[in-house]
């Protein structure tokens, strides 16, 4: 974020995909956005997995790929080690430069015509242990969760600022709670993508998220939020709940498309192997229109808020 006179120019470069509620589609939305922004808008996207469940990393790289990445010294847990040992903040060495599964992106790359790309700073289950160890260490030195979150956020800020010139967008897949790590992720984000389900408990989780982040991280959160209703089953109940979310409780938030519940999403997120590629059409099948609109709406949202130079379509 830099200033131009008194006017704040915000950048939409770091996007946190977050909600306090678990299982609302954060990781799935992260991967769909990455694929669709890379495919349709030719963007160079970095996916950072801050969740020790490593779901978006698995979706992008497969589980074997997650382990292979870790063996090559890649992964978000190394950022914690770096922080703990007081080393200079640097994320570049921990990034898997290829997390692409879309054939069209790979084919263009082969012809040295890169047009849209995805890299990943993956998570590994080790992240959970490393975060615990960090907490033990920090609290034994009379630190608090808040000071730890703040110090980690500064570390991330430094680590990611070197990356900003290299990527169009950095997507942070956040875990469903407020650990120091996830708080640090929220603190460095410019924009929030908030997936939610159209049911009462998810509305509740979303409300909690909005009020906590609004009070503790971003006062202008409402203006920076893009919500997506996911796994939508077209029932009366779901339609009512969605209507309330969009027209009453979260009426000031930008809503992206409603993503239907579909088996196609499950198969799209289950990459057959780390060397498997599929066309965008093949990967998303009958969901491809929804995934395209997700990126289109997100880009509209970013433009409307004037955070960024314009992104233009490179593929239909």
């Amino acid at each position: 974020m830099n200033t131009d006179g008194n006017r704040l120019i915000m950048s939409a470069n770091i996007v946190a995909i977050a909600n306090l509620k678990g299982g609302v589609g954060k990781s799935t939305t992260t991967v769909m956005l990455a694929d669709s922004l890379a495919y349709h808008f030719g963007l160079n996207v970095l996916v950072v997995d801050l969740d020790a469940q490593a779901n978006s990393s698995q979706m992008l790289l497969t589980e074997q790929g997650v382990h292979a990445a870790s063996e090559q010294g890649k992964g978000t847990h190394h950022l914690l080690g770096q922080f703990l040992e007081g080393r200079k903040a640097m994320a570049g060495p921990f990034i898997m430069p290829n997390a692409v599964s879309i054939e069209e992106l790979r084919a263009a790359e082969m012809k040295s015509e890169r047009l849209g790309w995805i890299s990943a700073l993956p998570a590994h289950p080790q992240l959970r242990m490393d975060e615990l160890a960090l907490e033990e260490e920090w609290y034994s030195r009379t630190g608090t969760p808040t000071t730890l979150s703040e110090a980690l956020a500064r570390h991330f800020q430094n680590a990611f600022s070197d990356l900003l010139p290299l990527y169009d967008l950095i997507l942070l897949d956040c875990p469903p709670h407020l650990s120091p790590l996830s708080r640090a992720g929220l603190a460095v984000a410019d924009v929030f993508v908030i997936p939610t389900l159209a049911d009462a408990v998810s509305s509740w989780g979303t409300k909690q998220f909005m009020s906590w982040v609004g009070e503790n991280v971003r006062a202008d959160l409402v203006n920076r939020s893009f919500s997506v209703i996911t796994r939508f089953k077209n029932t009366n109940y779901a339609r009512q709940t969605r209507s309330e979310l969009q027209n009453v409780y979260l009426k000031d938030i930008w809503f992206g498309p409603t993503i239907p519940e579909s088996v196609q999403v499950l198969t799209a997120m289950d990459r057959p192997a780390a060397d498997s590629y599929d066309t965008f059409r093949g990967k998303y099948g009958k969901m491809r229109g929804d995934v395209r609109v997700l990126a289109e709406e997100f880009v509209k949202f970013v433009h409307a808020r004037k955070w960024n130079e314009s992104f233009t379509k490179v593929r239909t």
Partner: protein
Amino acid sequence: MTDETDQDAFTKLDRFFEELRLEMRANPELAVRLVKAIGAEVSFEGTLAVKLVNPRELAITSDEAGFRAAFAAMTLADIKTVLKAHNLASAVDMKGLQAPELIDMAYRRAVAKAAERNV
């Protein structure tokens, strides 16, 4: 219980098993589930194999030779159908590959996926 009601019960059981037998004939998926439920091993041939073989399960429950045998009698198109249906390969992955290469890929990926999921 009188003799008469005994007879009645057996007749009814016979009817029950007859219905079950007929249903199993008509519905091989059900037959397979029932046979598996009593702990017997099942293997398939022909079009039934294409419909019922689960490569990930097979990768765990049988050895490599058994795995390959399940695909040996299948046509190229059938192998592709199985790989696609079980999300083990995309059309792009399978383009231009012949049956032996596809079976290699199926085995490699099924073993890997099953290992990921097996506790």
